[in-house]
């Protein structure tokens, strides 16, 4: 037993050289372990990839995927150049038509070329944000209502439990048909595929925010509620001064979960609704079945992961900023 303790103490012995070492040793897990993990992952990926032969050729290893990422960047640049040429041709054509047909009102149309990988990332982000926004606007007030009123909660809870576990794929056909039926206009501001995807995202990422808001609101400290009663705050003042400030950390916990779910759901929704985002990219590449397809899909998989991670970190930092209990551990 005593031997064990000496061994354990060794790194933190007070000598000068050792203190640097010990600091390094202490920070080592934070810096080194992720790198080791990553390297091991790449090594295993590389090894396993070599031994998987699909009908589309060998499963892509890290090098192949990196190369395709480069190709996607090149394609984006090439497409931008085509777009410039397109606008110039269009100007010339508009002018020519004006000369021939003076009543013509020329307008500049957007580039008609296919969206590149980066355009698709942007579409996906935009779609998920719209879906997430709609979900939040519905879920937060509803959650507050459920938290404040026991009877509202009892009434709505069965519905929450019923719809929470429903997969986006089950919703999608219904949403598609409803959007087709209700969203009719000659010059729609948004494409139907976009509206369908965004609504499917909303339907699926509503629930964590709703539940967490309800829990946050119903768990407000008794003392605070008593204060509100003693001061005879109006219902509105009670809401803004007591309820919202004290439940904000929980609301944001819910929002963060919702955004995570929304991002996952989006990819599936885009695949089926054909919204030109990352989901469609994956689907189209799968359909292409070229020898580069798998590597390009892998680029998309890593991109989806990276964006999901960044979104989560952003929500986490907002959550930290608005949380009044700085001692609580958030991860």
């Amino acid at each position, binding site marked *: 037993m005593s031997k064990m303790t000496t061994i354990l103490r060794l790194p933190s012995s007070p000598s000068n050289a050792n203190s640097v070492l010990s600091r390094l040793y202490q920070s080592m897990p934070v810096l080194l372990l992720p790198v080791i993990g990553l390297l091991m992952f790449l090594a295993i990926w590389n090894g396993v990839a070599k031994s998987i032969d699909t*009908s*589309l050729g060998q499963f892509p290893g890290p090098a192949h995927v990196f190369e395709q990422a480069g190709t996607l960047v090149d*394609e984006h640049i090439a497409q931008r150049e085509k777009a410039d*040429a397109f606008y*110039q*041709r*269009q*100007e*010339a*054509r508009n*002018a*020519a*038509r004006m*000369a*021939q*047909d003076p009543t*013509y009102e020329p307008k500049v*149309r957007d580039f*008609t*070329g*296919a969206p590149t990988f980066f355009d698709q990332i942007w579409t996906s982000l935009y779609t998920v944000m719209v879906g997430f926004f709609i979900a939040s606007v519905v879920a937060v007030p509803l959650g507050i209502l459920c938290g404040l009123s026991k009877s509202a909660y009892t009434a709505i809870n069965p519905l929450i439990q019923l719809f929470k576990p429903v997969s986006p794929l089950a919703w999608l056909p219904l949403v598609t048909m409803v959007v*087709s039926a209700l969203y009719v206009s000659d010059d729609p501001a948004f*494409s*139907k*595929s976009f509206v369908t995807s965004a609504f499917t995202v909303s339907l699926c990422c509503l629930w964590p925010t709703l539940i967490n808001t309800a829990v946050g609101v119903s768990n407000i400290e008794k003392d605070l509620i008593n204060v509100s009663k003693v001061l005879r705050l109006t219902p509105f003042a009670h809401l803004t001064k007591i309820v919202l400030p004290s439940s904000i950390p929980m609301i944001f916990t819910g929002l963060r979960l919702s955004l995570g779910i929304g991002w996952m759901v989006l990819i599936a929704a885009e*695949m*089926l609704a*054909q919204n*030109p985002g990352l989901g469609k990219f994956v*689907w*189209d*590449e*799968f*359909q*292409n*079945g*070229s*020898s*580069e*397809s798998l590597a*390009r899909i892998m680029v998309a998989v890593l991109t989806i992961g990276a964006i999901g991670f960044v979104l989560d970190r952003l929500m986490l930092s907002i959550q930290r900023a608005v949380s009044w209990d700085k001692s609580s551990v958030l991860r």
Partner: protein
Amino acid sequence: MTGLKATSLLERFRTVGASVCAALVVSVATFSTSVSAQAPAVGWPEKEELKFGFIKLTDMAPLAVAYEKGFFEDEGLYVTLEAQANWKVLLDRVIDGQLDGAHMLAGQPLGATIGFGTESHVVTAFSMDLNGNGITVSNEIWEKMKAHIPQEDGKPVHPIKADYLKPVVDEYRNAGKPFNMGMVFPVSTHNYELRYWLAAGGIHPGYYAPHKGDTAGQIDAQALLSVTPPPQMPATMEAGTIYGYCVGEPWNQQAVFKGIGVPVITDYEIWKNNPEKVFGVSQGWADKYPNTHIRVVKALIRAAMWLDENDNANRPEAVKILAKSTYVGADEDVLANSMTGTFEYEKGDKRDVPDFNVFFRYNATYPYYSDAIWYLTQMRRWGQISEAKSDDWYKETAKKVYKPEVYAQAAKALIAEGKAKASDFPEFGTETGYKPPQSEFIDGVTFDGSKPNAYLERFDIGLKGDTVL
């Protein structure tokens, strides 16, 4: 580094700017000389921004070429091309107006108009190509079939009839195993070709009975056909779910390249120069935008001409265009195999099929009523049309869906502009829309488009006369 880049960019702008200016001057000059000489033969397009759908198959080529070569822009059309998930999604999106038009199976406008599947009036004024499909079986089936096929110089004699598949189907049926095959859509060319080939070899492909709610098409079937989207065919066969399939390119050649199956016959050998895809739009759209419709057809005709020009001289370039991931996206060598006039059956058994993909010659783009009627006869033969119809009904339906008058306007405009010759097209004054009787089918049965009911009487397997299931 950045300085260098900036100057070169600036330079590029200058040169482009100069050329634009020059183009402007020239175009203005030409216009002022021919001022009011004539308003353009076809009126200005009512709708300029269009979105067309397609399925990832080589025969979408006219659309890709019309876009990449600027033929759409020459007509003042700003077209976006978008790949669709499957034929059903594509048709539904044309019907509900999300797409202005699309690359369609010849049976789709017909099926939609007569109400088999989604009901809606869809029309076509442009036939996109001839031939281009093949039937592929898995390696296992091929090994069993091969024993029955006559050989010459160590190679199987083509065309391979389904007679040689029959013993294999019987073997599976006797063992109690369903013999499953894939096709791409109930009203697809592939479905009818596969059925035609099987039935010609004595294998019953099954009936549909929509009036009883049966749309699976497997009543009395010896070979069970089911729908699989084209790009998933090879994978589905590899998984053992189906033993063979009928599909367009590149999905037959893909099976050879990946070593998972062997194409046994092309549709060229089932019915020489059969019509394949069409460009479909909804009737409502065609009524609302007549000039746009004609201009779209003009652009597509030019693209088809380009594809067949000088004995397929442009095909290698077309392959490069199609290989882009936003179009077909398959590997260039796979696409090139069929697009440049060859077809690889068994690995290494590459044969010349110069007319495997025909885009323009033989009046490939003209929407013949008789083509429509052939598809309608097959719908009747397999029960998709559940009751007897008069010859007149066939002709009226064909007239409702196929619009050669729009095609003729487009072609005449191209001739007037000097972009095409009158000899490139049928004689519009006398053309009836009915091809002379054709007998180049694998079973030698003659098809005369003006007598559909008499044609149906000639088949042993299939509904005819007043038969109702």
